[in-house]
């Protein structure tokens, strides 16, 4: 394995970056879509059921089937890969954003309104900061999920570290597949740890008395 690592050093670096890139884009776009929908659903509870229904459906579609379905339209492109990846983030992100907002203590909300915060100030200055631990947990979970899923996109020529896995299968070279799998796992663990640390820094008030997030 050491020999393999040395031989593929450059390739590993490139694929590592590609893997992170695909993941970051998926999470970024996922947040851009999930955030307004979740805030809307939080304020209009009727909308929450259908929203989680649809995003839940997207979550359950087998990734392979989704790529097979999309390829005739969007080709073997990054767009195809990202549509797949983003659709898996939505359920987790929307659910955590809404439940984070729902968990904001009613007394903080009432006193903030009573002091004269506008609805927008209430959202940005009180509700979102207080929902942050749960939202962070959602982003962390979605990111780790996507890191695993990126390997599947190797089937449509992307895939980051998944390329090693696919190559290993095609060449019947198990050590190559293991290399890809282990590196993807290492990436997931590193990113998870980084997020936990960022979360602690972003919510110093939640540290001393244990506000737990939904993981």
């Amino acid at each position: 394995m050491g020999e393999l690592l040395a031989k593929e050093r450059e390739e590993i670096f490139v694929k590592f970056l590609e893997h992170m890139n695909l993941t970051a884009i998926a999470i970024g776009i996922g947040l851009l879509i999930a955030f307004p929908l979740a805030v809307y659903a939080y304020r209009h509870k009727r909308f929450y059921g259908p929203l989680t229904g649809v995003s839940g459906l997207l979550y359950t579609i087998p990734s392979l089937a989704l790529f097979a379905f999309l390829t005739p339209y969007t080709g073997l492109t990054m767009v195809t890969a990202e549509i797949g990846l983003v659709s898996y983030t939505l359920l987790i992100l929307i659910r955590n954003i809404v439940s984070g907002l729902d968990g904001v203590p009613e007394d903080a909300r009432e006193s903030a309104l009573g002091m004269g915060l506008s609805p927008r100030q209430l959202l940005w200055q009180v509700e979102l900061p207080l929902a942050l631990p749960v939202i962070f947990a959602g982003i962390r979970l979605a990111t780790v999920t996507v890191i695993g899923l990126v390997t599947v996109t190797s089937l449509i020529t992307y895939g980051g570290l998944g390329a090693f896995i696919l190559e290993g299968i095609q060449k019947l070279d198990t050590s190559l597949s293991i290399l890809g799998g282990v590196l993807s796992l290492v990436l997931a663990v590193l990113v998870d740890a980084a997020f936990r640390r960022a979360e602690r820094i972003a919510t110093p008030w939640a540290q001393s008395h244990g506000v737990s997030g939904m993981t």
Partner: protein
Amino acid sequence: MSQAMISFDRVSKRFSGTTDAAVENLSLDIERGETVVLVGPSGCGKTTTMKMINRLIEPSDGRIMVDGTDVLEQDPVRLRRGIGYVIQSIGLMPHRTVAENIATVPKLIGWDESKIKSRIHALVEVFELDANMLSRYPGELSGGQRQRVGVARALAADPPVMLMDEPFGAVDPIVRERLQDQFRDIQKRLRKTIVFVTHDIDEAIKMADRIVILNKGAVIEQYDSPAEILRNPASDFVSRFVGAERGLKRLALVKVSDIDVEDGPVVRMSDSRETALQVMEDCATPWATVVDADGRLHGWIDAAMLSGASNVGSVAARKFSAYVTAESSLRNALDSIVTSRTQVAVVADENDHYRGILSLERISKEIIS
């Protein structure tokens, strides 16, 4: 005629899906600088009434004026910034430090940094908060500290009107009493117009200039000073609500300085034994208060202690276990009477100068009148 600070004019509130109105045709004037306590059983509409003032709840009917302006004609956000607001659970923002919490409204209305800072420090003094606390998060404070920070925050931008919904409800009785005393002292200086909601009649009696006793639908049963409500309950509902010990509660509101004290048996240390015995005989008491040459309380003696002595000063007088001052309540005085051997309360001023005595008869006359 001076205009009321807050006035309700035939205000009603019906929540959708309910048959009875939460507030039914309420008319009420609250004078500038007064603390008015809305009190009544749960579900009587007192909190709804209060929340209509800052439009956290919108009235269905009628008009509410604050400082001469119809609240419905104002932007609710701007209206609320001008009215202090404290709720029972306080609702400090857990993600902001104590200083940031206190600065909330001043920041919203655009005070500059240095003005906010000096205001925070003024409030720290007034509320006797620990300045080290300012950089902590609410989660690190005790219940009593949180409560005080909550009230300080509501006062931060110096609003003329404060709404307080059971602001001392969430702490234990000993802390509550201290917070009530402190806030009453602060209010004596600030003279804010305060609408205070509670279900606790004793708290109402303690805090109020005037009490509004509400029945279901926010129907006013009585709107009067605490003393008047205790002396003269307007209905069976009020006397039931005010409850037992009405007389004792009234005594708590009357100060010793409000009534005339009796002279009582008093002798100087230089007085002879004969003079002292004569004083006791005149007053028909077996004892007399001893004062020094300046008229300060020294103690008390009885006839038996004088036997063999030439003058009062040569007898070791007994100390009073307790005495009351002009600022004490009659309830304190009563307590002093029933626990003292002489069966009277001795009254002195703040420099220990003897003023007279209060007897049980004198106090019960006050309860009956």
